[in-house]
């Protein structure tokens, strides 16, 4: 099997709590290229899992398969114990069996994108209010109040009436994190949240993410920030060529790399 047995044992024994996200044997091909070769992942409530891997290792694809922005070819995804029901479509690919279920689950999995993807025609405040009012059907006044509080928290309340193109990358990403928080999500998915930022803006976004981790939020973070992976996350998962190469406690993983691939990977970062 693809996953390393020690890693699997580690994942299974780490906690008895209900798992927030459980992914089993996820496979995905783009044409002839197999990007995910049977990936499994278990995230418990309060886990902060950093997903590492060199480019092309499938880490972003895996994250996007969890909320079905990318359709996996096979495998199962459970969120909060609930299996996302899939069916075979006529062209032989998998498709969601119940799009309502997918939408309901997506509303619980807020995503933060590499390129922010704030809605450019809405102000920051409108960005934060759009999904809670239209998806969760919460009253607008309540959403506005929460949105302002979240913007204060990420330190861009002064920019609440700005349009995204008028802000720096760091401010946009903080707004995007606030937009995700406005959904009161059960799990937050971060897809390389700092990779599109200028180096001097990375810190402000990481500080926000660290504070989220510290308040016990469940987070899956695809990242290249070794510092964040080592110091903030509760678990590190290293993907190599579409397979789980190793999983473990960040301190152990970085002190004693369990596989040559991971050793090589962190050596490249420390150069």
């Amino acid at each position, binding site marked *: 099997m693809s996953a390393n047995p020690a890693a699997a044992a580690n994942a299974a024994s780490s906690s008895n709590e209900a798992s927030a996200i459980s992914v089993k044997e996820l496979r995905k091909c783009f044409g002839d290229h197999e990007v995910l070769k049977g990936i499994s992942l278990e995230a418990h409530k309060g886990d902060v899992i950093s997903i590492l891997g060199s480019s092309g290792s499938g880490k972003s694809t895996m994250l996007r398969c969890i909320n079905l922005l990318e359709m996996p070819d096979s495998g199962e995804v459970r969120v909060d114990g609930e299996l996302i029901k899939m069916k075979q479509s006529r062209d032989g690919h998998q498709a969601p069996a119940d799009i309502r279920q997918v939408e*309901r689950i997506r*509303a619980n999995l807020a*995503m933060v*994108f590499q390129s922010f993807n*704030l*809605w*450019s025609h809405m102000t920051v405040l409108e960005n934060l209010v759009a*999904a809670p009012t*239209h998806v969760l059907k919460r009253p607008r006044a309540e959403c506005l109040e929460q949105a302002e509080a979240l913007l204060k928290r990420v330190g861009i309340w002064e920019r609440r009436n700005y349009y995204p193109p008028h802000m720096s990358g760091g401010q946009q990403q903080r707004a995007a994190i606030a937009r995700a928080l406005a959904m009161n999500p059960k799990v937050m998915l971060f897809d390389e949240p700092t990779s599109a930022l200028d180096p001097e803006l990375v810190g402000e976004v990481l500080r926000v993410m660290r504070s989220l981790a510290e308040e016990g939020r469940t987070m899956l973070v695809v990242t290249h920030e070794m510092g964040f992976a080592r110091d903030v996350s509760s678990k590190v998962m290293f993907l190599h060529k579409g397979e789980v190469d190793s999983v473990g406690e960040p301190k152990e993983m970085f002190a004693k790399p369990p596989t040559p691939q991971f050793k090589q990977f962190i050596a490249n970062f420390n150069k």
Partner: protein
Amino acid sequence: MDFDFYLSTMWSVLKALPLTLEIWFFGIAFGLVIATGLTWLRASGYKLGEYFTRAYVFIFRGSPLLVQLYLIYFGLSQFDFVRHSPILWPVLRDPMYCTIVAMALNTAAYESEIFRGALRAVPVGQIEAAKAFGMPAFTRFRLVTLPIALRLALPAYSTEIILMTKATALASVVTIMEMMGTAQKIQHDTFRPIEVLTCAGVIYLLLNLSIARLFAWVEYRLSPHLRPPPEQSQQIKPVPEVL
């Protein structure tokens, strides 16, 4: 220069402006409805719908509006069933209706192409964000895709509307006395083409100028995010170390 003649011609042509505007308005209104339907058919993913819209655009964009107008006004009445139809004949025997039908069918072809291009140009990331937040397809379309696509379509759409303003002049060839028809009649009566056509031309220019200004204003109102940012009067505080 004969100012009195200019003034009287101006006045006569201007009196036909409401008729021009009527053709223009109903032409683009029905055209917009048809174009919306065509765009939907094209985007729906049904093969049959796609073939139909492709053929439609090929025919109505590829042939002159004048030919289409002649075919509808002079051509269709050749058929007995058209002349005996209680629904078709009241419409197709009236040159006014025929002009509006021809304009609507013609502009719909162009507009559906404009809308298709605008929909395709909406950044994928914007739609993905809406998906990732659990928005159902219609909400996604209403809150994200449509507002962005409309802004993208507006410049090309305004050009099409201006082309339609000028196309109303074709109504004169099927006996409608709108501005161009009126101008031509004065020209035939007076043999003073320069003065008469200048008057008509100036009115068309002013009409199109106001339409262009109107669209520019709408575009300005809809695109605050594409203008330079407001004055950076408020200093942004750095993120506090402890949140």
